[in-house]
């Protein structure tokens, strides 16, 4: 590895419609968590990190109007993020033609289907309306990207809960590193839907005051929506093309807890194996890591388990490694989280600006020794960063990213 370059990024998140807005929001420590407005919800929690305004990607003009009408919100988010990344990477039609598409998602068109279901069951619609259900399958976002951008290479859609798009990035990197393809677009996309929101709320996993990762008084996560995209390509090819390399994918690993359908293994064995495996795959010792973008959801269980894993890997040195969770600002974007956080990490490597853990007031005493990057973040050149995603059901992915040059 190390031969996989990131040459384009895109993002649509609660902090705004593009990477510039994301970067500015991160640096300011702005929290994108606010009232839930997408649908009515009568539970404990009323907060979410919603995308403020979604402008359809210019590329949707390429699709027939009837098709565009049937796109789900995650389809639109994915197209917008993909367009930004492809534009930055300057991938021309010839390169796009052969590029692979790797998407991570969990909700797909479920919000739209929930409406259709309600209308059918109440009798408001006397038949099922297929036009409202076509966006349901998670794989339509990858299909939409392929059709809108003229991409006819391999494509795949992964759904492993919170690690979906981290897995998509890992798969894209593997495909390039092995020489099967030269360029790939890795995308994470997810939107809010009633089922997901109500489910997490029913599990008492949402913090009614907004998530506070690593805080002593943390009370759960905040759900978010969004999409992020990365163009990955063979590093030698990127150099030959003269395109700027924003960061490199040095290594990754994927493991399974085989423990519980929702709770992470408190011993963190699978998560630990993912971190160690990723470092080994990257050929990088743990001493080389100088920033960690945490999974950091803000639930008591996750943050406990995650710090335990980080201590096991880094030992006493952990206290000198900045660790921040950006879910405090963009929420937990579920299937999109891996890609959003990878983009955040690429930004940190490229700009030397470390994002803060924006809603942290009082660190939990169990890790008062750690550098959790209080707001407003800071300038610090970093060379090697680690980002992990832990999916419901124990599906762990760790990515090691390195500075571009």
């Amino acid at each position, binding site marked *: 590895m190390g031969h996989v370059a990131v040459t384009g990024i895109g993002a649509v998140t609660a902090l705004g419609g593009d990477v510039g807005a994301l970067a500015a929001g991160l640096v300011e420590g702005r929290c994108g968590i606010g009232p839930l407005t997408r649908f009515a919800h*009568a539970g404990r929690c009323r907060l979410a990190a919603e995308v403020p305004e979604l402008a359809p990607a210019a590329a949707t003009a390429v699709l027939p109007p009837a098709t565009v009408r049937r796109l789900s919100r995650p389809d639109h988010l994915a197209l917008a993020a993909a367009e930004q990344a492809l534009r930055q990477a300057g991938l021309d039609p010839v390169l796009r033609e052969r590029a692979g598409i790797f998407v991570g998602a969990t909700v797909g068109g479920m919000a739209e289907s929930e409406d259709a279901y309600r209308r059918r069951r109440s009798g408001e619609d006397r038949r099922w309306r297929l036009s409202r259900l076509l966006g349901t399958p998670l*794989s339509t976002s990858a*299909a939409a990207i392929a059709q809108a951008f003229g991409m006819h290479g391999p494509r795949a*859609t992964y*759904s492993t809960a919170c690690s979906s798009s981290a897995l998509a990035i890992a798969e894209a990197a593997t495909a390039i590193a092995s020489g099967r393809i030269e360029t790939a677009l890795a995308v994470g996309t997810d939107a809010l839907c009633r089922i997901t929101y109500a489910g997490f709320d029913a599990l008492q996993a949402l913090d009614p005051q907004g998530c506070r990762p690593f805080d002593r008084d943390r009370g759960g996560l905040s759900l978010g929506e969004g999409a992020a995209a990365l163009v990955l390509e063979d590093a030698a090819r990127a150099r030959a093309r003269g395109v700027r390399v924003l960061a490199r994918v040095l290594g990754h690993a994927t*493991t399974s807890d*085989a423990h519980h359908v929702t709770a992470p293994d408190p011993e963190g064995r699978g998560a630990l194996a993912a971190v160690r495996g990723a470092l080994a795959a990257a050929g990088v010792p743990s001493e080389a890591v100088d920033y960690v973008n945490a999974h950091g959801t803000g639930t008591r269980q996750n943050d406990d388990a995650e710090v335990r894993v980080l201590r096991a890997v880094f030992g006493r040195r952990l206290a000198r490694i900045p660790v921040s969770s950006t879910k405090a600002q963009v929420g937990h974007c579920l299937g999109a989280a891996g890609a959003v956080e990878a983009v955040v990490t690429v930004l940190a490597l490229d700009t030397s600006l470390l994002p803060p853990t924006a809603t942290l007031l009082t660190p939990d005493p169990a890790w008062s020794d750690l550098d959790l990057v209080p707001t407003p973040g800071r300038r610090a050149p970093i060379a090697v960063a680690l980002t992990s995603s832990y999916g*419901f059901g124990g*599906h762990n992915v760790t990515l090691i990213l390195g500075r571009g040059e």
Partner: protein
Amino acid sequence: MKHAVAVTGVGVVSGFGLGVQPFWDGLVAGRTACRPARRVEAPGCLVAEVDHLEARDVVRSPQGRRIDRTSLLALAAAHLALADAGLAADELDAPRTALALGSAFGNVQETEMFLDRLLERGMGNPLVFPNLVMNAALSYAAIELGVTGPTAMVTEQEASGEAAIAWGVRQIADGAAALCLAGGSDELTSSIVELRRETWTASAGPPRPFDVAADGPCVGEGAALLVLEAPEAALARGARVYALIVPHDGASVASSLHGWPRDGGEVARVLTPLLAGADAIVAAASGAPALDALEAEAIALGCNGRHVPVTAPRGAIGDFGAAGALAVAAAALAVRDGIVPPTAGCRQPMRRDLDVVVGVPRHARLRAVVVDGLARGGMCRPLRLEAA
């Protein structure tokens, strides 16, 4: 060929019953498992249901008592596949074992129940919610089998099974795992039948893939898992090898986003390299006229004038996202036995230049069998299986 991966076990649960034997017997005899419903509500149409499957017969872990049907189908097929490969779950080298499942819709039944309660009472049931994530089946199987290596849940509509198996083949070929269980699972619900009926996307009678009178698919359910290993490993433990699968990444072709490609020629271009020297094709045709016609054209063009025997198992096992995993299972069995099963429901093929196996099975030595793995939105996820 480099890096081809051995299939050493096949587990299937289908409308023909539990196990690979009833599945293969049914296919080879040209029977259909599409019949009047017993479990779901399906007035006036035929469906292929998996009967006699109880969680208590399959599930061993305490976690598994809450298992949903889609996950149960997958788990049942996983256990069958391991047994077929002569392996016990506790013999697996957990960190070097991978797991991949494909599903088009995951857990449908409980999603509806959850939504019903949410709409009615404004609250969701926290006990049901963990089952609703798309990767529930993956988690249940990983927990039941103790798999701690790489795992992936993939979703590619009608090619979900092929996509998962292709991922699994890569894990073995790349050395990321020593053994991989890969396949797919999708369940049937009354709502799916109702949806198909109300949107005129299913036939009232038995499905007739590739037939001139095809008037729609019949929906079904089922799961198939394969045990994948490196050929050297299979040899070392004296495992029986059904076939070798050649790694393939698939491709996208121009297509209507929510439907099928209009140009069979583009699909043919993707398939042609795999079809060279192929002795049989396992097709995705389900009796849906748009798909069947497109696929027939693609195969005819892709075979370049050669008449390659074609069989379409969805006439027997019904149409559902993960049916492609059963198609790959059928291909493995075809290679093992040198038999191309007839296409249940097909009497008069829609094209004369398409050699659809009709009525009786064909016996021949099969050096290579191709599963074309077509899905809506321009996805092609073909796999080539070769004689060991």
